[in-house]
């Protein structure tokens, strides 16, 4: 694992949504959908992201794809900071000043080597290439904005949850898939486009004649295949699968899961696999991150996480899943209460009002995400005390 390169690094990612009210549409509150999230995804792996409804999984996915502009924090793709290209232009200057220029100004030049990798690269550029000229440095991030955005689109793709609303009902399947090729000018003529469309359709287990049909002529599972084809036709490196099988029938779900595993091998894909279903996550992931109310509470290689969950929430989540075996006897941990609102998250550890082992410190101090055992990070004051 450690020898592998992280393809995507997320640092202190924050996304808050404004709630507006009244005639003047004034902002009355903020939904803290994602509130400081750090994780890496390594090349070729599947990172599972699991958590209950509203905990911010989709928001994480959308933000790293640049479909939502992050409120704060950075996203690195293959070592390059792509944040400037996914936030509005007018925020770029401030972002660069805050993230790089200010810290670098305070930095002694010989301390560059102590910086984390993703920062080091920019420190070198800052000190060596542009000779500490902040203006020049910022201009670097403004240049080629359109091209950079396009390349982000090509490399990062998404498969959506709802196989019905994610395909335009008035477009033929061939155009739904081919649109991406047109936008990125990846084909020279119609024949080439058709060839590519058919090629990818076959890859996802469909037939060439399907290109001429409309989405409503297909079942949920087939539509999801079309959605996958649309994502893969651009040859992306990372695919975010947001509840990609949740809306499917049980007997179809396994077909799609198998397909996604096959495609991962064929195309060398990296997946961020988002789901609320721990069983699915367990099946498909190499590593798993558990989210609760806008934060990652635990992240670890699959085996570690399922064999020895350290966070009380993870433990409770696992025990809450009904096992399809009437003889399977287990101790159920029934959490009290509901998930609190992300508008006013609880102080300290956000899980403390529902946590069976919470103590005084939990409501006062927020536990940081720290390593407990190899590659096993957890944000709890008493990791592993509940099991």
């Amino acid at each position: 694992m450690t020898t592998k390169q992280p393809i995507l690094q997320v640092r202190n990612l924050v996304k808050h949504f404004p709630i507006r009210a009244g005639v003047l549409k004034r902002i009355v509150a903020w939904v803290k959908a994602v509130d400081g999230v750090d994780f890496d995804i390594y090349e070729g792996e599947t990172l599972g992201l699991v958590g209950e409804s509203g905990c911010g999984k989709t928001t994480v996915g959308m933000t790293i794809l640049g479909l939502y502009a992050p409120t704060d924090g950075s996203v690195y793709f293959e070592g390059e900071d792509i944040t400037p290209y996914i936030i509005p232009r007018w925020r770029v200057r401030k972002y660069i000043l805050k993230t790089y220029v200010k810290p670098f100004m305070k930095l002694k030049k010989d301390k560059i080597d102590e910086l984390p990798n993703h920062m080091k690269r920019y420190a070198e550029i800052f000190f060596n290439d542009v000779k500490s000229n902040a203006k020049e440095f910022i201009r670097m991030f403004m240049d080629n904005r359109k091209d950079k955005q396009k390349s982000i689109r090509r490399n990062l793709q998404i498969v959506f949850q709802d196989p019905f609303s994610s395909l335009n009902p008035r477009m033929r399947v061939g155009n739904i898939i081919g649109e991406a090729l047109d936008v990125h000018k990846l084909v020279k003529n119609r024949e080439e486009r058709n060839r590519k469309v058919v090629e990818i359709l076959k890859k996802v287990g469909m037939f060439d004649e399907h290109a001429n049909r409309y989405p409503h002529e297909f079942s949920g599972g087939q539509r999801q295949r079309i959605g996958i084809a649309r994502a893969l036709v651009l040859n992306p490196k990372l695919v975010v699968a947001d509840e990609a099988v949740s809306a499917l029938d049980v007997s179809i779900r396994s077909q799609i899961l198998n397909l996604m595993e096959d495609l991962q091998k064929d195309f060398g894909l990296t997946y961020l696999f988002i789901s609320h279903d721990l069983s699915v996550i367990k099946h498909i992931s190499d590593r798993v991150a558990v989210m609760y109310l806008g934060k990652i509470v635990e992240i670890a290689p699959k085996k570690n996480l399922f064999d020895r969950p350290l966070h009380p929430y993870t433990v409770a989540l696992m025990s809450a899943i009904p096992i399809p075996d009437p003889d399977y006897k287990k101790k159920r941990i029934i959490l009290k209460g509901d998930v609190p609102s992300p508008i006013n998250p609880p102080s300290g550890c956000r899980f403390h009002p529902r946590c069976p082992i919470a103590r005084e410190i939990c409501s006062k101090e927020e536990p940081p995400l720290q390593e407990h055992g190899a590659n096993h990070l957890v944000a709890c004051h008493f990791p592993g005390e509940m099991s």
Partner: protein
Amino acid sequence: MDREYKRMLKKFFRNPSGLFGFALLVFFVLVALFAPFIAPPQPSNKHEPYMMPIVTWSSEPQPPSKEHPFGVCGRRDIFYGVVWGTRTAFRIGLTVTAISTLIGLFIGSISAYYGGWIDEILMRITDIFLAVPFLIAAIVLTTLLGTGLDKVMIAMITFGWMGTARLIRGNILQAKEEQYVLAAKAIGVSMPGIIVKHLLPNTIFPVVIQASMRMGSLVITAAILSFLGLGAPQGYSDWGAILNYSRDWILGAQGEALKYWYTIVFPGTAMVLFVLAWNLVGDTLRDIFDPRLRI
């Protein structure tokens, strides 16, 4: 989709009032197309066939007869005016509806797509336009611009796009939530591309329906303006204009209130049927596409 269209067609033609409206519409189209054969212009006004020929020198209306099946009014043949007036009606209706719908589409989709303060500004402007009663606004503007059919049309376009803008905005706001729009963004489709390829095709039908309903009422408004003397000039083949100079005879002769009935009934009937045709067709389309749209 093809199957869907077929089903809609089947539904349409199973609906008697829709079928009736459609038949009426076809009838009007035929009349408009074949006007030169139904009511051939006299050699003297070949170059301006829209002017109703003067057929008599007496100013008193003449009842229907063999040569003038709808009678004569203001020295001119009513039949000729009604037939050629069909063309005028279509011209006004189609032009005004098309242009005002396009303006509405543009403003509404920009407003909905961008949201935020752009939406706020555009919608406030729409509100202001909506606050002025349509007819009064049109009258005032026509008076300012001067009389004439083209001026009437400009006035009606200026105050006719708001309904479309609001409708399309609401629909797009709804469609924007659909994931295929996000998917298009994820692929990298540009803003105009998303509006034109993804949003409009899925939201345009209610607009088309609304436009077809508006078509009829526009002709009435144009007629009212003509009736007030703001529209078409004397003698022009326009239903409203015919009604305008039948104005003096509306009260009939002494002791014979209905004596000049034909000066009103023929152009009036044409107008009512025209409006009815569009409304029936629009109504039926609306029922087929989305029963929830019914108010």
